[in-house]
């Protein structure tokens, strides 16, 4: 490690390390960010949910979108795995089915960044008691 010689050097390092800490900073108030929940039950993982999740994490980071990507259990739409729930700040959750890499790209570009819906939405068929 070379020494930090000025305040601007320090700021530069801060920016570099902040991306690594973003996950921790953002998780305290996820409702302010884009939340992506990937269904990661056995059926989801078998259909490639892990790759989908990895893609979301990397792509959102690359495109500098502040987002919290978490996994969740089976949402019950096993026919449409991998399933992904996206919550934009202040909006109702939307669930997408059959999310492979291409679909994920489309979701990021069209829904997350521009707020326009894309095909493949699964109508939510239940209410949860804690919300």
């Amino acid at each position, binding site marked *: *490690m070379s*020494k*930090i*010689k*000025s*305040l601007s*050097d*320090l*700021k530069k*390092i*801060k920016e570099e*390390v*902040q*991306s*690594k*800490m973003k*996950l*921790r900073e*953002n*998780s*305290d108030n*996820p409702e302010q960010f884009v939340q992506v*929940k*990937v*269904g*990661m*039950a*056995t059926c989801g*993982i078998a259909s490639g949910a892990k790759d989908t*999740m*990895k893609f979301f*994490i*990397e792509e959102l*980071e690359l495109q500098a979108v502040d987002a*919290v*990507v*978490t*996994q*969740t*259990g089976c949402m019950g739409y096993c026919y449409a795995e991998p399933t992904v729930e996206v919550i934009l700040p202040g909006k109702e959750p939307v669930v997408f089915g059959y999310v492979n890499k291409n679909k994920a790209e489309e979701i990021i570009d069209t829904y997350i960044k521009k707020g326009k819906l894309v095909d493949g939405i699964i109508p939510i068929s239940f209410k949860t008691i804690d919300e």
Partner: protein
Amino acid sequence: MTDYRMHILICGGTGCKASESNEIKEKFNHFISEFDLEDEVQVLFTGCFGFCEKGPIIKVLPDNTFYVSVAAKDIEEIVKEHILKGRPVKRLLYKEPVSGEVISESQDMDFYKKQIRIALRNCGFINPENIEEYISRDGYMALGKCLSEYTPEETTNIIKDSGLRGRGGGGFPTGLKWEITRKVESDQKYVVCNADEGDPGAFMDRSILEGDPHSVIEAMAICGYCIGADTGLVYIRAEYPLAIERLKTAIKQAEEYGLLGDKILGADFNFKIELRYGAGAFVCGEETALIHSMEGLRGEPTVKPPFPSVSGYMEKPTNVNNVETFANIPVIINKGAAWFSKIGTDKSKGTKVFALAGKINNVGLIEVPMGTTLREVIYDIGGGIKDGKEFKAVQTGGPSGGCLTKDFLDTPIDYENLLSAGSMMGSGGMIVMDEDDCMVSIAKFYLEFTLEESCGKCNPCRIGNKRLFEILDKVTEGKGTLEDIDKLKVLSDVIKDTSLCGLGQSSPNPVLSTIANFEDEYLSHVEEGKCPAGQCKSLVRYDILEDVCNGCTLCFRNCPVGAITGERRTPHFIDQSLCIKCGVCYDKCKFNAITVN
């Protein structure tokens, strides 16, 4: 590198490490490599979360799941269920004791809701052994700002305007202390960090040093810049091995990054930090005694003036501040004096860290704004008294403080209010007592501590406290007289007025405050020979109620001294000459056949 999708924060404070947190970390590493998750999940130790009652604590991010009382055997399940499949392990989540509600995210817990964390801002959030994580949280920005934008005078004024007062006990305005030291002319000055935390049951400073050592290092450098010192010394007790280790690591990292050393951040400012170890004597928390101990002399206080700010370490001007005081400094510089002074009460600004202990549900470390009431601390954050018992008193300020009754529950906590209530802020120990505690015994306990810790230099403290203890002992034996209570009061006043240092000047406080608030308890010891709480062994008598005892023999089998006799299915009998009043029979009896008098 790829970014981790999940961070697992394991509490690496002394409390949780004493449980199983080392083993837990190993298990996590084991299962995470077994499931090939090394690139996805990062496991790390952080500082104390404060919720020590339910340690070891684990926080899983980004889900923000807060696991309590985790054991090494639970890790496989957490990895398989939560990490792999996103299903939190419900049985390890926190359950609110009153409502029984299961809560998965820490910010929803009553324990955390009323807290504002300034000094503890990074504890339980960053890895204390990684300087970059500290930097990402504005670390060393305050130092950079001071060196490039403010003169030492301007920096000192920010601290003065913020209203920050010393968190070690006295509550002296920090900015003013800096200014006094700054104005003294000398070729050499020192910054000293007082990490000699001595109050029984207090662990605020230890947790800050273990969880966020860089905040103290940064603040010491800022102080050095303000007063014109190039050397900082941390006086820390050798009983804090983990804090020492983390501090050493942090100093080394800061040196490697050029944040300590010569020409820091390109400015004309040099600063280095060294450690000095103490042997854990209570009196060494007093600044003159601390300085003597650092010089290699006996840890005995001397008369002030001269104050350390004029003649301190090696007879050079020295600024001594406590760990928690320092931890506040970088935030004040970054956010401004106005921001800080908005928090708290009229004369006490900011927050205070308290170590909650005793008969309270949520034992742990908390940070609340000044002006929070004792009721909020004890009932809302602390979760109330253990086993639903009645609150009796809360002891603040350690052995130098006093006991406050339920009349003071709605008193907002600040320096002045605690003082006028007959106690003090001290370093922030808060010990809660319930109906089963005998106040005379409590006063005796604290006296025993000061007696042990008195350095012996001045007579009022060395001899006076001994006599106080003897009288208290007499009272708990049931041999006290009304005259003795008066003697306690007079002697206490003399000790307070004539002792050399803060230790003696405050040691009678527990006696005076218990007499003031619980005189009836003293009187029943003296006049009736009874201990209302049933704690004073000489005054307690256990008896078996003949008509209730069914001769189950449970007490007989458990009595450690064989004082209980009796045949099966016939009432038993306690031989008072053999009984040591341990209370085992009382605890064991299932039929309430044993009475305490």
